[in-house]
């Protein structure tokens, strides 16, 4: 219950809300204003934001000030007699031209910043960001745009925190199972796209946001100077779990990044080796549960009960009791026209074998068969 509302905040926020924009310059910056961020671009954006905010405040003071004077002074209850003027060409020209000049003065620095944001060349590292319902995939690309390391990153907040059965942690809804890792002081270029519907990838501290659109490859870049953990969220409505696909980026010094990257390459090799292995049923259940919780759980739920009719139950249904190969095909190809995605490009043969085995033997299901990676490979050949 640590998210309980404290009366103290009520007393500060109400007057602040009523007072308006004028306050964010003060000591409340963390809570009330745009974060300054950790990149040149985010600082430029912050400066633009503050510039236009103060311009608006200044205009507001003049406009609302004139209104307030009029409301106080020019009222009938004070016996004020109405003048009958209704035109003043000079005045009207002045208050058309002055706003125009102010706008030009705002447009100029905005254009400069925008041009810098679009300067995507000369990158040190390219990462493809791919949005899925409801997780992110990160692919590290080499100079020829070939994939070297690839992994999925999905929400790590336990479900009982979301359903209010346990205390919410500090990074509630802003934590993932495997964060993106990037080196500091290097120009990282992101190629952003999506597999199913439109998502948007945003890290406020970097000052970058781009829609992930199926069939499009958008690009953007960042140079992060300070090592740290930076958090963001999907910012385009992408269906049921739009609020539950956060972004976490771990910016580490280049040396540390290289060590991490080396480990990921080894992990990729190990995963390749797993394709030819034979696993015990216990190993399949453990790995299967892990895969299920990362890829299947948001629709079919931890209990396997799903949310019929849109997300079918997996308990005792024809799919989990019927022929094993049909079950595998369903997971590999998906069901076109429904929410059931194709997992052919998301899971390798070892993961597919484990998750199908798990689904056929969890929650009281007992198909009594064993699924190995070679079964999956045989099926796809």
């Amino acid at each position, binding site marked *: 219950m640590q998210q309980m509302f404290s009366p103290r905040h009520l007393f500060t926020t109400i007057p602040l809300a009523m007072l308006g924009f004028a306050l964010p310059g003060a000591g409340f910056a963390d809570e009330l204003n745009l974060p300054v961020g950790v990149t040149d671009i985010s600082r430029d954006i912050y400066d633009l934001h503050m510039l236009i905010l103060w311009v608006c405040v200044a205009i507001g003071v003049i406009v609302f000030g004139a209104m307030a004077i009029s409301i106080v002074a*020019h009222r009938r209850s004070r016996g004020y007699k109405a003048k009958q003027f209704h035109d003043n060409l000079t005045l009207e020209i002045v208050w058309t031209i002055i706003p125009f000049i102010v706008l030009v003065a705002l447009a100029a620095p905005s254009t400069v910043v925008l041009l810098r944001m679009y300067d995507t060349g000369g990158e040190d590292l390219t990462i493809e960001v791919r949005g899925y319902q409801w997780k992110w995939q990160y692919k590290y690309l080499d100079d020829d745009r070939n994939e070297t390391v690839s992994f999925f990153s999905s929400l790590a907040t336990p479900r009982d925190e*979301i359903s209010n059965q346990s205390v919410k942690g500090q990074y509630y809804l802003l934590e993932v199972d495997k964060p993106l890792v990037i080196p500091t002081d290097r120009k990282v270029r992101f190629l952003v796209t999506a597999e199913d519907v439109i998502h948007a990838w945003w890290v406020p501290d970097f000052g970058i946001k781009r829609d992930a659109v199926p069939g499009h490859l958008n690009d953007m870049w960042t140079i992060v100077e300070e090592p740290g953990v930076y958090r963001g969220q999907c910012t385009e409505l992408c269906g049921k779990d739009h609020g539950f696909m956060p972004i976490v980026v771990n910016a580490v010094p280049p040396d540390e990044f290289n060590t991490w990257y080396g480990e990921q390459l080894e992990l990729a090799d190990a995963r390749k080796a797993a394709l030819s292995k034979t696993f015990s049923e216990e190993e399949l259940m453990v790995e299967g549960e892990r895969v299920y919780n990362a890829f299947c759980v948001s629709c079919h739920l931890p209990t396997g009960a799903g949310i019929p009719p849109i997300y079918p139950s997996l308990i005792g249904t024809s799919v989990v009791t019927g022929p094993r190969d049909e079950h595998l095909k369903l997971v590999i190809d998906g069901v076109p026209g429904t929410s059931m995605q194709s997992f052919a490009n998301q899971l390798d043969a070892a993961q597919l074998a484990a998750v199908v085995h798990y689904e056929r033997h969890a929650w009281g299901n007992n198909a009594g068969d064993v699924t190995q990676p070679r079964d999956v490979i045989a099926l796809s050949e």
Partner: protein
Amino acid sequence: MSAIIHEHDDHHHGPAAGITRWLFTTNHKDIGTLYLWLSLIMFFVGGVMALLVRTELFQPGLQFMSPDFFNQMTTNHGLIMIFGAVMPAFVGLANWMVPMMIGAPDMALPRLNNLSFWILPFAFMMMISTLFMEAGGPNFGWTFYAPLSTTYAPDTVTFFVFAVHMMGASSIMGAINIIVTILNMRAPGMTLMRMPLFIWTWLITAYLLLAVMPVLAGAVTMVLFDVHFGTSFFNAGGGGDPVMFQHIFWFFGHPEVYILILPAFGIISQIIPTFARKPLFGYQSMVYAVASIAILSFIVWAHHMFTVGMPIAGQLFFMYTTMLIAVPTGVKVFNWIATMWRGSMTFETPMLFSIAFVVLFTIGGFSGLMLAITPADFQYHDTYFVVAHFHYVLVPGAVFAIIAGVYYWLPKWCGHMYDETLGKLHFWLSFIGVNITFFPQHFSGLAGMPRRIPDYALQFADFNMLSSIGSYIFGFSQLLFLFIVVKAIRGGIAAGERTWDGAHGLEWTLPSPPPYHSFTHPPRVTEAEAHS
């Protein structure tokens, strides 16, 4: 002999009895009343949805509804408030006021008028019925971006598509009627540049409706074809483009947001001169400003899409054109203040709502200007900052203007004054409620809270709770509005012809309530009586 003629007259000039009066009516006042009641009902339906959304967002965690139902609520709230509450309210006001303000007996096309209203209840019943179907209602946001609204949509999307078609047909018919009426039925002496601002803004709005409603119909038709007939207009896998959907949608959508605000400008431009007892300042520049806003609205649509990955030339073009809108909008605000300046003001309920409109709409305009700055928009886009922005221009903007208009003309319509004390109470509750609801959303947006999420990180908790409390104050105080309106209809102090001593315009030369056919003999319009 004369008695017989009198009876004959009554037969033709009074309303029919019972329900048929409302079903078959071709009278502009009856149809106006139907539109206004439909709008109020939809305002409450959409309002309940908003309160459900705010209740779920009262605290972090999922308490009351599934994320999918949450999405259905936000989607239907948006659709109902735009197409069901604000637009029919403006059409209702136009039906009541256009013939009375231009000196005509009725609308030019009365049967079309009946049809354009009676389509609407069925369209909304069809759309809302999907909420009770197994697959659930539309859940892809009122903007229904493909492919979420095509490949990944619930099966009920078909009902949504046809409901939108019907709403569009109704709007087009209403727009044609208003244009034809204004251009052909004006009394002698009512030249274009003598028309009241409310008539001007509606004339321009009607042209916007004619221009963009077919575009919306095209968009939903393409959605329908992608869902049912295997086309790939918006499916990248089949050679289509999801971004094209957004271009088409916002080519409709941006003029649409001015459709939602221009008649409001008109209402405010009637009310402020009345209670300032002073002619509207800069009548001509007001007309030109509205026309410029309408024209600019066709070349700014992609500012809703700064993050889709447009080329830099496109980004710059849409940033500059969007900023340009601030100029005519600024002119309007300055003119309203110049109208108040050195007037002899009183502060009856319509004036209070109008003053609040000018202040709060301007705040919405400021955040709009901030959103126009493309680099900064990358930080604001699709956050609660945007939610705060458009609610500021639509709730204390469009909705306050409609409420102001109702208080202003209600005595004319029913012949009785409303309860001024209760009206002021309604104003203050609404004003406080609306600010507590929407002002904190600027802060949660800047702090990084995305829109359209059913659950949120802990740092957004305080602002959300505050916002929910404000929404209850605002929402429940609208029941007071219903009470005040019903009370005035049932009786009260006689309103008199010229209810407000500072009011100008032909509607104030008619008795209250006005005769069934407003002006059976065209009045002669003088400069002084033409517009406020």
